[in-house]
C-alpha cells in the first residue's frame, strides 16, 4: 500500500482571444477498490462563468463549465491524496458494451492477422490478457508523434508504433476479439510527467489493470482519472470555443510518496 500526493495541471494558451468556450473535464480521480481518493481539489482559471459537476455513463466525475467572456488562456489543476492498494481494480459486474469493438478499436487485417499469430494459450482471462500484452510489447516500438488522438488501433498496428494510447487501443481490440470485456483508462503514473493510458480487463468478477506500454500489471504507482470503452469516451479534457485560434497545451503532473 502506498500513500501518494498528486498534482496534475494542464495549461492551454490560445493564439488569440476565444469566447463561447464550453468544456468538460474528466480530471478528478474517484475511489474504487484499488484507489481511495481524499480531498481532490480542482482549480480552474480564469475564473469566468459557471462551473459545475456531472457524471457520465461510465461512472466518471465530470467538471463542466462555460466561459462566454473573451479569454486567452485556460488551465485546470487537480490535486489531492490517494491511497493505493497494490491489487486489482474495483470488483462488480462490467457493462456488456465493454465487450464490443468501437470505431477506434475495430480490428482490420493487420490486427486480425497479428491475433492469429499470437493467440494466447493460457486458460484464464487475466493470463490471456498478459500474454497478448507481452506479444504486443514485443511487436511495437514506442515512438512519439507518429500517431494522434484519432489514430485507430488498426492504423497504429500497421505502423507498429505509437504511444500509450495506441498500445491501449490495440490491446483492447485484441481482447475484444476474444470477447473479453475491457476498458480504456486515463491516469497518472509515477514515472511520467504527463498523463498515461492503460487497460483494465474484467475477468467476470473484478477489473485488473494492465499497462501494455510497459508490459506489466499496474502497481501502486498508478492513479486512475477516468475510463471508457476507448479514448473517445473519456478524454480528460474536451472543449469547444468560438474564435479562429490555435492553442498550445502544456501538461505536467507530479506524484510524491507521503
Amino acid at each position, binding site marked *: 500500500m502506498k500513500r501518494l500526493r498528486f498534482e496534475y495541471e494542464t495549461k492551454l494558451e490560445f493564439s488569440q482571444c476565444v469566447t463561447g468556450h464550453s468544456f468538460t473535464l474528466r480530471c478528478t480521480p474517484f475511489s474504487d477498490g484499488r484507489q481511495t481518493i481524499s480531498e481532490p481539489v480542482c482549480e480552474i482559471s480564469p475564473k469566468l462563468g459557471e462551473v*459545475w459537476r456531472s457524471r*457520465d455513463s461510465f461512472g466518471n466525475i*465530470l467538471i*463542466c463549465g*462555460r466561459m462566454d467572456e473573451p479569454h486567452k488562456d485556460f488551465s485546470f489543476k487537480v490535486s489531492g491524496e490517494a491511497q493505493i492498494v497494490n491489487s486489482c481494480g474495483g470488483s462488480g459486474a462490467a457493462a*456488456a458494451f465493454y*465487450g464490443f469493438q468501437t470505431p477506434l478499436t475495430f480490428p482490420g487485417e493487420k490486427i486480425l492477422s497479428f491475433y492469429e499469430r499470437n493467440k494466447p494459450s493460457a486458460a484464464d482471462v487475466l493470463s490471456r490478457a498478459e500474454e497478448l500484452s507481452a506479444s504486443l510489447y514485443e511487436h511495437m516500438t514506442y515512438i512519439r508523434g507518429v500517431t494522434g488522438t484519432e489514430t485507430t488501433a488498426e492504423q497504429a498496428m500497421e505502423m507498429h508504433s505509437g504511444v500509450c494510447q495506441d498500445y491501449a487501443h490495440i490491446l483492447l481490440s485484441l481482447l475484444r476479439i476474444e470477447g473479453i470485456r475491457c476498458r480504456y483508462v486515463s491516469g497518472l503514473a509515477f514515472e511520467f510527467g504527463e498523463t498515461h493510458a492503460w487497460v483494465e480487463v474484467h475477468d467476470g468478477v473484478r477489473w485488473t489493470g494492465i499497462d501494455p506500454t510497459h508490459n506489466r500489471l499496474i502497481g501502486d504507482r498508478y492513479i486512475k482519472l477516468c475510463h*471508457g470503452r476507448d479514448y473517445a*469516451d473519456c478524454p480528460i479534457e474536451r472543449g469547444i470555443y468560438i474564435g479562429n485560434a490555435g492553442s498550445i497545451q502544456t501538461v505536467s503532473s507530479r506524484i510524491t510518496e507521503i
Partner: protein
Amino acid sequence: MNYMNTPVADAKAVNELLARYGVKFGIYKNGTFNEQLFPFDAIPRIISAEDFSAMEKGLVQRVDALNLFLKDIYSDGKIIKDGIIPEVFVYISKGYLAPCAEITPPKGIYSHISGIDLVQAQDGTWYILEDNLRIPSGASYPLIARELCRMASPGAFENNRIADNRNYASLLRSTMDHVNCGGINVILTPGRYNAAYFEHSYFAEKTGAILVQNSDLFVENNILYMKDYQGGKTRVGAVYRRISDEYLDPMTFLPESLIGVPHIMDAYRAGNVAIINAPGNGVADDKGIYYFVPKMIKYYLGEEPVLKNAPTYLPFYEEDRKYVLDNLEKLVIKDVSEAGGYGVVFGRDMTKEQLSDWRRLITEQSRRFIAQEIIDFIDLDVMENDRTVLRKADLRAFVLSGEKTQVWASGLTRFSRKANSFVVNSSQGGGFKDTWVLLPE
C-alpha cells in the same frame, strides 16, 4: 373500396395552395441547396374504420414494446440475458449509444414520436416495413394538406365520414407537456437549410413551442436555458430536437458538431430536461433489430403481434444466410446503417456479376445486411396528366407516446412517381397523398 364514388380534391387548387403556404422540403444536389415542392396527389388513400382499428391496436402494441426494449437495454438488458436477442445485435448497432446507458428519461419514455412505415399487400394484409424512432418526419404534410383540401374541396368531406386529423399539433403539444421537466417547450432546428425546415417552423407555430437554434440555448448547472435578446434566460423543460444524436452535444458525441448544444446531455442525465425523442433510440429502429420486434412484443407484453413484419432473414444466422445466398434474385437487400431509401437494392435488378459481388459482400459482412421477401404491395391510383395511373405507395403512421400511446388517425402516404418503382421517399422524387381514416358507421 370504391374510388369511383370518392369525390376528389381539386389537385391543381391544392398544389397551388401548398406552394403559396411554402410547403417545401429542402434537398442537396451536387452540393447546392434547393427547395422543392412535395408533389401532392388529390386521390386520397382510404383506410376503413375496421382496418384502422386493427392497425391501431398493432401499432400501440409495437411502440409500447419498443419503448420497453429501449428502457431495458439501457439498464438491465434482461432481454439479452434471457436469450431473446443476441447481444451482438444491440451493441454493434450504430444506434446504440453507451453514453446513454443508465439514464432514465423523464416518465421513462424513449420514443415519444414514432413513425412506423407500413405497406399493404395485394391480399389486404398490412406489413411493417420499418420503425423510425429517431426523428421521424413528415406529419406536417398531410396535416396542412388536409386543411387545404377542406378549403378547396369541402364536398369531399361532406360526403364521407372522415376522421379529422387536425389534432396532430395538440397531440404533439400534450406529449411535450407530459414529459416537460419544468420550463418552456422548444423545437430545436439545425436551421433554414435543413430538409424539413418547413415542418420545424410549422410545428412551432401550431404547438406554441419556441423555434430555436443551438445558439439560443445554453446549459448551466445541468439546467437547460433559452436566452432571449435582452440577455435574460428562461428555463427549458422539453426539447423537441430535430437534429440527430451524433450532433446533439459536442461534449458527448461528435466534438465537431456546430449545431449541437454543449452539455445538454448533462442536463438530460440530471433529469432536468426531456429530449424528444430520447438519444440512443437508433438501436431500436436498426434494420437488424427489426427482425426481433415480434419477439419483443411477446417477451415484454405477453401478447401476440397484431401486425406482421415483412418476412426477413438475417444473414448473421447460418440458416438464413444460406437461404439468402440461394434466393438473392427474388429478395430485397437492405444495408442496416442507411436510411431514407438509400442502401436498398433489389436482387431482381442485378446482373450476374452484381449478384455474385453481393453474395460475397453478404458473406463477408453478414451483420451489415438484412434480406426481405419483396412484398407485392398494392398500387394506388395516382393522377398523372389528367388520367389515373397505378403507383406503389407506403404509409407512415405516427404514434405518439405521452400519458398514453395514441395513433394519429391519418398518416403520410408516399407514392413513387415512377411506374413499378418501390422507392417512395420524398428525397428520391416521391409524392404524397392525404390519408383518410373513415369513422365507424
